[in-house]
């Protein structure tokens, strides 16, 4: 699907996300200015502070944003707060640095002259240093703001929304139109912001410091008027947006039920299924925090009361969250998990759903024929010839790659971590030979892959299971029945079919969920 078809079909979503993106960026950059400028001024007075402060700001900039995001979740949870905080941290350096540079480059004689005529320190700062620093400071703000627009796309990773949502979803589902629908507005936003800030930069540069401007005083005065008008309009829009979101925050409904989901198609469909269903069957106002990231992000979010429920998989809870050695016993996995999670986290496992989205290994048809591989035990012989491309999660978890190689006594020729749908693309382009796949993955169907049969019952069960915090369940017991009804309807084939509709047909998870519920008569059209 091309970007234009996507944009045309989903323009209101793109627009909402764009607004969200502007709000988040504006908020982050504003705070970065409010924090960064005073710090810059401070270190220009206390020079000995300059080095440690700038080194720290430099260091923060050197940390990969994803890692920083990981660190932030335990402290700030998920949603806009950690996203904004991280973008602030990244935006600080250019602002601090330029403020510092701007102030320190003013000649000491000028400051002495100001002191000599009896100005106080504050007056010198306000009337001499600040105006002379402003152009350089604004250049720093400009760099920060443009970077922030790009960086803010990571916000979607922890459910803060913004245009990154489209980019991440698009990558998940190999939907280039969707990726572009997120990337292009972000790009344009960055360019527009850069242009607006260049106007500010020009405006705050004293006429006397622009040799060109001095020659044409009248022209520049007229031009400045126009620039001021443009900026005033832009400022009003941004302030309006910020105000709007603030009101939204204040009006937070007590009866809100927050559903989270991980960052792949099935999870987003599940999130929408449950969301739509609860909206129809209960009085709850559902808030969707879909596409949040991996197990860690979602589980932490649930535990820290950022969301009220999400759907997890039994095997993941058992082996990863509770850190048990992986086993294949379906009943034991569920029972142990339910008991331990309840005790440790006060989180309730509802009845598990009817489908198992376990791991499997998938390979192209041609390779399957070439190496004569059809089941997992075949890897013992041919595994060493294959280059694996798996999710980072699979690569690292106990019941993942290491366990697989151990159980079948082989070693892949190479193994690299790839995220989401990019594995399929790598497989098709021949960059890797074998990938891990979820058994309900619609892309398996799309790319027509061979799923290796689990003939040794190697992979643990991964039945979908809704997780709800106990306190929420106590408050809203009415949610259990509809969710369990839904769970009964979803078997492996049904789920794969729903995934396929999103991943192959290019429908949105929202649409697919809605259509399914209508078709089954669970909600009305």
């Amino acid at each position, binding site marked *: 699907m091309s970007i234009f078809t996507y944009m045309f079909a989903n323009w209101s979503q793109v627009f909402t996300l764009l607004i969200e993106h502007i709000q988040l960026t504006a908020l982050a950059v504003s705070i970065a200015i409010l924090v960064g400028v005073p710090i810059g001024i401070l270190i220009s007075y206390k020079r000995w502070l300059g080095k440690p402060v700038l080194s720290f700001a430099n260091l923060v900039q050197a940390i990969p944003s994803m890692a920083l995001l990981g660190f932030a979740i335990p402290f700030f949870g998920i949603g806009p707060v950690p996203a904004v905080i991280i973008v602030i941290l990244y935006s600080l350096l250019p602002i601090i640095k330029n403020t510092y540079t701007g102030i320190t480059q003013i*000649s000491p*004689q*000028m400051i*002495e*002259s*100001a*002191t*000599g*005529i*009896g*100005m*106080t320190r504050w*007056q010198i700062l306000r*009337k*001499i240093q600040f*105006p*002379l620093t402003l152009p350089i400071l604004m250049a720093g703000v400009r760099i920060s703001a443009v970077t922030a627009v790009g960086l803010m796309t990571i916000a979607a990773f922890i459910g803060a929304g913004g245009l990154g949502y489209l980019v991440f979803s698009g990558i998940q589902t190999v939907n280039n139109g969707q990726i572009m629908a997120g990337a292009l507005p972000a790009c344009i936003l960055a360019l527009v912001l850069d242009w607006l800030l260049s106007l500010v930069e020009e405006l705050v540069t*004293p*006429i*006397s*410091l622009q040799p060109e401007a*001095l020659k044409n005083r009248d022209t520049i005065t007229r031009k400045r008027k126009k620039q001021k008008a443009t900026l005033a309009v832009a400022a009003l829009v941004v302030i309006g947006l910020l105000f709007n979101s603030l009101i939204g925050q204040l009006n937070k409904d007590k009866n809100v039920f927050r559903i989270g989901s991980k960052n792949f198609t099935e999870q987003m469909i599940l999130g929408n299924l449950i969301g739509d269903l609860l909206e129809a069957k209960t009085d709850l106002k559902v808030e969707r925090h879909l596409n949040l990231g991996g197990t860690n992000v979602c589980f932490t979010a649930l535990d820290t009361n950022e969301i009220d429920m999400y759907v997890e998989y039994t095997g993941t809870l058992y082996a990863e969250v509770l850190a048990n050695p992986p086993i294949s016993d379906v009943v034991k996995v569920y029972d142990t998990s339910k008991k331990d999670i309840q005790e440790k986290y006060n989180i309730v496992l509802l009845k598990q759903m009817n489908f198992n989205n376990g791991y499997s290994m998938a390979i192209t048809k041609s390779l399957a024929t070439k190496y004569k591989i059809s089941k997992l035990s075949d890897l013992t012989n041919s595994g060493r010839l294959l280059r694996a491309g798996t999710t980072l999660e699979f690569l690292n978890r106990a019941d993942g790659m290491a366990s697989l190689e151990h159980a079948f006594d082989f070693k892949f020729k190479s193994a690299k971590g790839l995220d989401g749908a990019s594995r399929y693309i790598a497989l098709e382009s021949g960059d890797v030979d074998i990938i891990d796949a979820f058994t309900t993955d619609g892309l398996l169907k799309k790319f027509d892959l061979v799923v290796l049969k689990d003939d040794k019952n190697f992979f643990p069960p991964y039945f979908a299971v809704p997780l709800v915090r106990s306190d929420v369940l106590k408050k809203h017991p009415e949610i259990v029945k509809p969710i369990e009804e839904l769970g009964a309807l979803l078997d492996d084939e049904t789920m794969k079919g729903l995934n396929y509709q999103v991943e192959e047909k290019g429908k949105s998870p929202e649409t697919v969920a809605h259509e399914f519920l209508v078709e089954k008569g669970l909600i009305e059209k």
Partner: protein
Amino acid sequence: MIKFANVTKKYKNQEVLHGIDLEIPKGKLISIIGSSGCGKTTMLKMINRLVPITSGTISINGKNILDTPPVELRKQIGYVIQQTGLFPHMTIEENIALPMLLHKWSEKDIATRMKELLNMVSLSHDMLQRFPTELSGGQQQRVGVARAFSTNPDIILMDEPFSALDPITRNNLQEELNDLQKELLKTIVFVTHDMDEAIKISDTICLMRNGSIEQFATPEELLKNPANDFVETFIGKNRIWSSPEFIKAKDIMIENIPTCGPKTSLLSCLEKMRSEVLDYILVRNRLTSEFLGVLTAGMLRDLPNYEGIASDIMGQPVLTLSETDSLVEILQKINEHNRPYLIVLDENKVATGIITRKSLIAILGKQYLSDDSDEGMVI
């Protein structure tokens, strides 16, 4: 009056000013001069507390400057520095108005004062909306001066304000500053490294070396009686010739001229001239030493005999010089009246010396001929 009492300044362990004692009288323009690093700027900046004093006291009109908070003190003192003193992002008007705004003057008062100031430093009204970078160096410095005078402070500190200007502009500004000072009677402390400038504008010069005052004297005194070799070298040996107004009749006249009384016989007068190898002799009252007239060889030559006394034939020149007449005036008189010589009288009409055309040539020639004669102010 600004008074330095045993003021020292140390940077780390290095003493850059050693126990300075100095009194700067009210309403005078004092130059502090010396080569770079001598402590002259440090001294200046101590007055408005831009540089803290290590020990000793500076007082203004008897009040220790440390008793006034620095910002208040500085607001009472005008301050002009070299070029960079103007703020580039402010218009000329804003620059000049700044001290008045610091004093919280009303807009109306500022506008009135602005007009006066523009007149005072000869700047046109349409300059006000321009920026410093649009002005020439000389104009910028006029703005700096206007700003320093704006709130009418009694004391104005100037730190080499004219040193970056071209000679013609500098000259003009120096003259204007001189006029301003004479008119407004501000106490101005002026730091410079330019001796010509100091001589030209100062009432008193404070000559510094390595953190000590070498000589504190009027320009004339400094030129004529350098306190030591350093001062002499610093001001330059023949410096006085570029300030001929400081060369006085008293300095260049020939003293110890032969004299006689009015009743002395002409013969003995002639004898005296011969023995001294001079062709004139002064006639004076033996008792009061009052100058009476001159007897020249020419007068005697035409006489049939040398009977008679000096008062019979002595000439009585109406044109005489006073001891304080400057070299310029002497040359003017000699030329205008075409006199071969002029007698110098002191305030009591006592003839103390004589200046002849011949002696003038010898004096003026000295600056071009290397002096193997005596040292010092040797005129």
